[in-house]
């Protein structure tokens, strides 16, 4: 399963360089042709310097289809106990012992999905943790950018003249508004999958010729 790690062994610094050198699709690319990787991380807290990633889930979208066969869910060995955060994500220390190393996770992401546009709900947080993780593992991190479904939803509602409360932008509230199946809270893969469905629905609110650049501007 972790074949990319075993062979061929790539020099550590090569991983970041190779990820960086793969071109991202240009803003003029129609969204229907863009490959996305939707991801979600479960964390021990909110501070990327102090807290840790306990699990990660992702699922790619190609040609507007969520590819379930390539979905992945990993538990990550934590350097310290998960402590109180177990209450939220339901993962306990003994489960995380079976997980993979943090560097394996980041390496898997970078080597498998170069050229994929990252997507997350409240992406800022996930990117901050990924960046710190890459820096720890490889000495430096790619400059990650992502489409944020939360921001898209914020703009969408804002343009409709709705008064927004924080609750309205939670993943499950967004799903309900888009009449999508609810996600069981705080499971990285389930949330990543739900977020992917949300993205497709958000894209479908616009014309079929929408470009990546237009999508990015909605996510600002």
């Amino acid at each position, binding site marked *: 399963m972790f074949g990319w790690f075993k062979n061929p062994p790539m020099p550590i610094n090569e991983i970041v360089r190779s990820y960086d050198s793969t071109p991202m699709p240009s803003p003029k690319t129609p969204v229907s042709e863009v490959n996305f990787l939707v991801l979600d991380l479960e964390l021990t807290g909110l501070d990327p310097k102090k807290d840790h990633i306990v699990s990660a889930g992702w699922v790619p979208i190609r040609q507007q289809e969520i590819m379930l*066969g390539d979905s992945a869910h990993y538990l990550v060995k934590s350097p310290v106990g998960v402590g109180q955060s177990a209450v939220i994500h339901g993962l306990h220390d003994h489960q995380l012992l079976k997980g993979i190393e943090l560097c394996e996770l980041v390496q898997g992401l970078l080597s498998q999905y170069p050229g994929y546009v990252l997507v997350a709900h409240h992406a800022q947080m996930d990117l901050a943790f990924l960046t710190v993780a890459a820096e720890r593992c490889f000495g430096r991190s790619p400059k990650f950018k992502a489409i944020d479904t939360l921001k898209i939803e914020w703009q969408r509602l804002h343009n409709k003249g709705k008064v927004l409360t924080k609750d309205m932008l939670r993943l499950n509230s967004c799903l309900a508004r888009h009449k999508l199946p609810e996600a069981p809270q705080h499971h990285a*893969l389930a949330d990543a999958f*739900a977020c992917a469905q949300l993205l*497709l629905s958000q894209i*479908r609110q616009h014309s079929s010729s929408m470009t990546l650049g237009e999508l990015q501007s909605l996510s600002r």
Partner: protein
Amino acid sequence: MEVTEVTKFLAETTPFDELDTAQLQELARQMSVYYVRGGEEVNTDSNRLMIVRTGVFSLYSDQQQLLTKLQSGDFYGYQQLLTDLSDQDTLLCDEDGLVYWLSAEGFQQVRYQYKNIDLFFQRLFGRRLHQYKAQSTNRFTLKIIDVAKARKVSISPDATVQQAAAMMTEHRVSSLLVEQQQKLVGIITDRDLRSRVVAEGLAAESKVSEVMTNKPFTIELHAYLFEAVQLMSQHNIHHLPVLRDEQLFGMITATDVIRAQQDHPVYLIGEIHRQHSDDGILQCASQILHLSQSLSSQQVPAHEASHVLTTVTDALTQSWIKLAIQRLGPPPCVFTWLGFGSQARMEQGLNADQDNALLLEKEPEGAIAQYFEQLAKIVCDGLNECGIVYCPGNIMASNPELRLSLKGWSKQFARWIQTPTPEALLKSSIFFDLRPIYGSKSLFNALQQDILARTTDKAVFLYHLSHNALKGTPPLGFFKTFTLERDGKQKKGLDLKKRGLILITDLARIYSLSKGISAINTRQRLMQLAQQKVMDAKDSQNLLDAFDVLAQLRWDKHQHDIAQGHEASNLLDPAVLSGLQRHQLKDVFEVINQAQSQMKYRFCREL
């Protein structure tokens, strides 16, 4: 590493429900998920199995005939996977939804591995062939959604009339929806272009907003087709914008309607609206019995038949009101003709009597009082002659106590709610189901909002209402035997209405009043109660099923009585039922029993 959302759904979907978790995970990995927007055509030659997760899809033959509707748990694409022959079908998405695509390899694999799954799809294919042959849909049950296509041709109010004309030509339509910020603001038809632009000598640069019809009548996608007929004939219009959840869906025209239902006896409704004389209306009313017989012979489900019959009563009422206004001159103030009870719930049977009243904008004094007294007399007498007989309890607009202003009604309801005397409680079962039949909707809305605000979470009132409703029980004895009752003529039977239908209607009303739900129809109330999680989805479904079974039995019984030349009676002799039916009926009563004890627990605990 599977997505539980997907495997959980598959585990509940025939034929995959026989697979275990590991097998389902394996299957899910061969799938992808796609979001389809309403109006989008689904690509049908991708040689994969499509599984509908959410949304509604219409399948049209190459002749553009509607073959079937696909909903959650339905499949498409197996015919091509099984035969390698592609179809010339069109699959159109009516309501946004998610579909799962299973790859051809995945499909073949699971088919070879599990014999039952293979058999399932073979059978489905067999049935599908049949679909092409049996295309005559039941004419009465046609809904707007069956006829209207998810095709929205719209223009901005700021466009010019020339652009509008060009657009009509391009799309070959006779009308356009005028839309601003995704909201319907009007419609413009080719007739408008003729009579309001060309005939008036307006410039081609004139704005659409200057000549369009503002705030047009609209119809819901899930309404029955005959309701569109009624709106069109009542207001002499030929185009109706179709809404789905208040969003614009498309347009339905008189031509669409005629094409869809050439032999529809509910033309009767259109006919009624064209009458301008007593004799004409009476002539139409004499056809009701014939209509009900043909509804019955076409095996229209009971709840739909009652809906049709209620619509006829509505049309007759409206015609009499129009005739009265013709005779008496324009009304001195705004008013609403109210229907109560079964007419309000759209659940009328053949033996329904009148339950109606008047809601007036101003206090009924002097000339106003006089005018509406006369109007009520004409309408109530007229309906009586049409066979919708006077209410034995005098709940009719001809009763001066039931011709009140908004303030008057509001006071009246407040009194019933605050001091629930036995008489008030008795009345609640009739008066709390109300619907505007003719006149001002906003006047009615004001009253309804007022009532709902008063009843929501009003524990004392709900206590008494429930207590009263619980006096009626299903006719099941201790050992689950039927308890029969006699009517005046010494005939034993089960009273399907008093000991069945009414109990469910009461339950639905009490729960709805407790949560401010404005639906009136019992089935709609039960559905909304489940949607808003006031009632458990399963309980609501059970009650719905029970209601349908009882309504069907009663409807069949009435038809049978009439065919035998008897009066329609609600008393059913269980001996005429088959063993299976008897068993089913006991289940129905059991469901009511349980729902009643839940209601007791909810509303009748000590206060």
